[in-house]
């Protein structure tokens, strides 16, 4: 790869990107916790991020990425609301399979990982700065 010198910084940056993407998905899940209509039709389904390690052809570390975004196909939450326009024949409305408490737990994990990657970035940067100072000796 062209800039081997900054490999570490790129890795930390990929970690920041991947975890920000995850946090975006969580934000979407929480925002749509009660959404019964989507452009594709039907209620909103919880979105999950699939993380994958990135390496180049020679097996050298390249960080991480959100390889795909999948839908949680677990059962939807059924609530008896006969007046609701999206109620089925028996009067039940299918609400998204989003558990707000579980999403908050994921959010904490994602934000902790994001902070850790930011710390790594800072560590790598200060290492470069120190090396530059050595050159001024």
């Amino acid at each position, binding site marked *: 790869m062209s800039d081997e010198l900054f*490999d*570490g910084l790129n*890795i*930390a940056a*990929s*970690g920041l990107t*991947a*975890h920000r993407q*995850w946090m975006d998905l969580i934000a979407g899940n929480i925002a749509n916790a009660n959404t019964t209509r989507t452009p594709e039709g039907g209620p909103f389904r919880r979105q999950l991020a699939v*993380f*994958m*390690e990135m390496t180049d052809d020679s097996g050298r*570390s390249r*960080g*991480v990425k959100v390889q795909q975004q999948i839908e949680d196909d677990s059962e939807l939450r059924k609530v008896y609301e006969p007046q609701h326009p999206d109620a089925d024949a028996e009067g039940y409305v299918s609400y998204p399979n989003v558990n707000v408490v579980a999403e908050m737990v994921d959010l904490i*994990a*994602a934000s*902790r*990982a994001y902070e*850790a*990657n930011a*710390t*790594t970035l800072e*560590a*790598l940067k*200060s*290492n470069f700065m*120190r*090396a530059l*100072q*050595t050159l001024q*000796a």
Partner: protein
Amino acid sequence: MVDVLGRDVTLAALAASQSALDRRLELLAQNIANVNTPGYKRRDVDFTAELAAALDAPADSRGERVSNLGQVVAREIVEEQLFLRPDLGGVDLDREMAELAKTQLRLAATNQLLYKKIRQYRSVIKEGRI
């Protein structure tokens, strides 16, 4: 002309340890980036034993010792054990952050010693002035 830098064992040892620590920092970055990757196995480098062996190895001259140090490679290790649960990765974030801090301090120390070493040469070149 005598190759002064080519016989400086301290300089060679500092250079070897600096490049191994740099590599370590990169691998720690990879571990931390993959803290939420299922099935990820943590990486690390092992070089202290090899560095110590290169410093202690019998050598006929300082030049030979320096070239021994030049051959020290940071051996990459992959830890097979997964942390906590198999559906999670092998990364314990708190441990990685502690290792990161340690590596940073070691790098700072190595850097400081390199700085002093270069200042020493500079002082000699300038015949003690400044």
